[in-house]
């Protein structure tokens, strides 16, 4: 069966510091991968998606970037965090369909 991991689970970072969040998927190959952000009390905002290694599409202009160095690895990064980057970050994967399966999330607090 397929599983999706995210780490770290929680993170507290000062403004201006770098960020790296990692997501890995097991038990499947060539999945579509997605990064979402969920601000407090709000819905999900799609940040990036990837249909293959090295292929990244950005949905909204922002202070973040994404990379997919391996088939089942998806990384969310920032060079300098802003206060507005705080939120709950969710990674999801999808087989060749519209069903998406979510990881446990990373709670990021920028102070």
């Amino acid at each position, binding site marked *: 069966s397929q599983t999706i991991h*995210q780490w770290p689970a929680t993170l507290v970072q000062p403004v201006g510091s770098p960020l790296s969040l990692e997501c890995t998927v097991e038990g499947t190959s060539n999945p*579509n991968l*997605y990064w979402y952000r969920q601000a407090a009390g*709000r*819905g*999900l905002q*799609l940040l990036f*998606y990837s*249909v293959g290694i090295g292929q990244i*599409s950005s949905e909204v202009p922002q202070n973040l970037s994404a990379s997919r160095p391996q088939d089942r690895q998806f990384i969310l990064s920032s060079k300098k965090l802003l206060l507005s980057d705080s939120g*709950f970050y*969710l990674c*999801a994967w*999808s087989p*060749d*369909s*519209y*069903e*998406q*399966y*979510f*990881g*446990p*999330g990373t*709670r990021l607090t920028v102070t």
Partner: protein
Amino acid sequence: AQSVTQLDSQVPVFEEAPVELRCNYSSSVSVYLFWYVQYPNQGLQLLLKYLSGSTLVESINGFEAEFNKSQTSFHLRKPSVHISDTAEYFCAVSDEGGYNKLIFGAGTRLAVHP
């Protein structure tokens, strides 16, 4: 542009009462529809989906949703809720732009009281 509207941001209900969480979408093409549930500080779990066929779909824990094409709705119902159903519920529709993207509603917080 496509959108998903969840008409109620919060729904309080007593245990064992019925509940309906409303979802409407806008799309000019055939769609796939989903309901996800999120418990506090956790990721989203797929609750049920409509891809094709019967317009009434059911989950293993007693929820059901009905696809109504004429009203562009996909409301979620449960005849008798439990305390453990307290969570955030998100409706989602397939994005016409492809790449298996989904468009999510803002969510409905279901609070079940004893």
